[in-house]
């Protein structure tokens, strides 16, 4: 078995790695946006909930939360499938961090523009959709990229709940071939390539929506 054959075998897990990563990114984006918007609109009574969410999900290790969801919840009668378990741990944790990224993006918006929109007679919701979100998302690009990278890097935890991703393939190969060094080197290269792909995609999106005068935060 040469290095290329090892790579080919590992590549069979790439699809799973991508699915896990994208599912957790989606979970993180949805929860992060929801949290940041709620924080921005400040509905009464939610402040404490938001603070607690942020504190808990940024304070607990991904692996601990993953095990709690996947191995712990069945004990109280809740079976959670592996991918969902990843989303409820890595995804929700990413949501807490992304909420911070989005919050900073919202804060970078010029309050004068919002005042002008209010003076024009736009509704709060219209201002949010037409002015705040488009600007905030542009400011948030670097922070989002950071968090997406983090999600990719934690995605190998998926193997601990039985998802046959790149890491799982590597462990199977390594157990049978005693060529762990090459195998894990190849795994590193694969993750790095996926990371570069993610980077390229984000840059393309950023360029597509680039506006003169709005720079990265």
């Amino acid at each position, binding site marked *: 078995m040469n290095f290329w054959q090892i790579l080919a075998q590992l590549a069979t897990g790439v699809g799973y790695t991508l699915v896990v990563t994208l599912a957790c990114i989606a979970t993180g984006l949805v929860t992060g946006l929801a949290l940041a918007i709620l924080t921005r609109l400040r509905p009464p009574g939610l402040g404490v909930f938001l603070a607690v969410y942020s504190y808990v999900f940024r304070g607990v290790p991904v692996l601990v939360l993953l095990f709690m969801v996947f191995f712990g919840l069945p004990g109280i009668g809740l079976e959670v499938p592996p991918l969902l378990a990843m989303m409820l741990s890595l995804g929700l944790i990413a949501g807490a961090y992304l909420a911070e990224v989005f919050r900073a993006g919202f804060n970078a918006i010029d309050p004068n523009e919002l005042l002008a929109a209010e003076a024009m007679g736009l509704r709060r919701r219209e201002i949010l959709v037409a002015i705040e979100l488009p600007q905030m998302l542009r400011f948030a690009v670097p922070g989002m990229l950071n968090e997406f990278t983090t999600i990719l890097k934690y995605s190998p935890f998926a193997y601990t709940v039985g998802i046959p991703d790149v890491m799982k393939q590597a462990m199977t190969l*390594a157990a049978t071939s005693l060529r762990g*060094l090459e195998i894990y080197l190849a795994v590193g290269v694969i993750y790095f390539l996926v*990371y570069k792909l993610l980077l390229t995609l984000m840059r393309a999106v950023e360029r597509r929506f680039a506006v003169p005068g709005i720079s990265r935060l």
Partner: protein
Amino acid sequence: MNDWLAFFQEVLDYGPALLAGLGNTLLLAVTITLTGLLAGIGVFYLTISQHAITRRLTDAYVSFFIGTPLIVLLFLMYYGLPPLGLRLSPLTVAIIGFTLNVAAYNARYLRIAYNGIDQGELEAARAQGFTHLEVFRLVTLPQALRLAAVPALTNQAILNLKDSSVVFLIQYTEFFAQVQELAASNFQYFKAYLLAGLVYLLLVSLIVLLARRLERTVLRPLL
């Protein structure tokens, strides 16, 4: 209710092992926070080197370690090296792996802070006749550290503590490994992991409080 009482009884029985695990967790987290900071400063020095090749290589290093999972590096050393006759202890593997990884991140934070330094100051220092290393030690580093120091490095310490939980996957008996033992002994997985989560939360809170105090009493007067 009785469940929980029984569970706490188990926790007490496991107390010494859990505490020993916690000790190992803290040992690892503190070690890699320090080594990661020192190595990060070294890598940062290389990223602003005058030699293009050195810069290119260090940038590649930083980029690679930011782009690949730490766990891959840990498995590479722990499972990949023994067949070549090199057997490292889990703690050694963890320290090397984390240091390489954390150094890359710290170098990047410092680099970002460096971009915020007034270039005129650096030029002035060079014009005064200081060597490259002296400028780095006397001007660049203190300023970059001041700009990056408290928030970024506190976050790094918190991440280190949380991420140290992965090393049970390479058989290092830290806190989370002991929690799993506890869970396996009584099948109270949910309670055990809940306990683990609470302990990590508590430790993270302690780091935050400590960092605040450090900033107030040590750093602010110093800078």
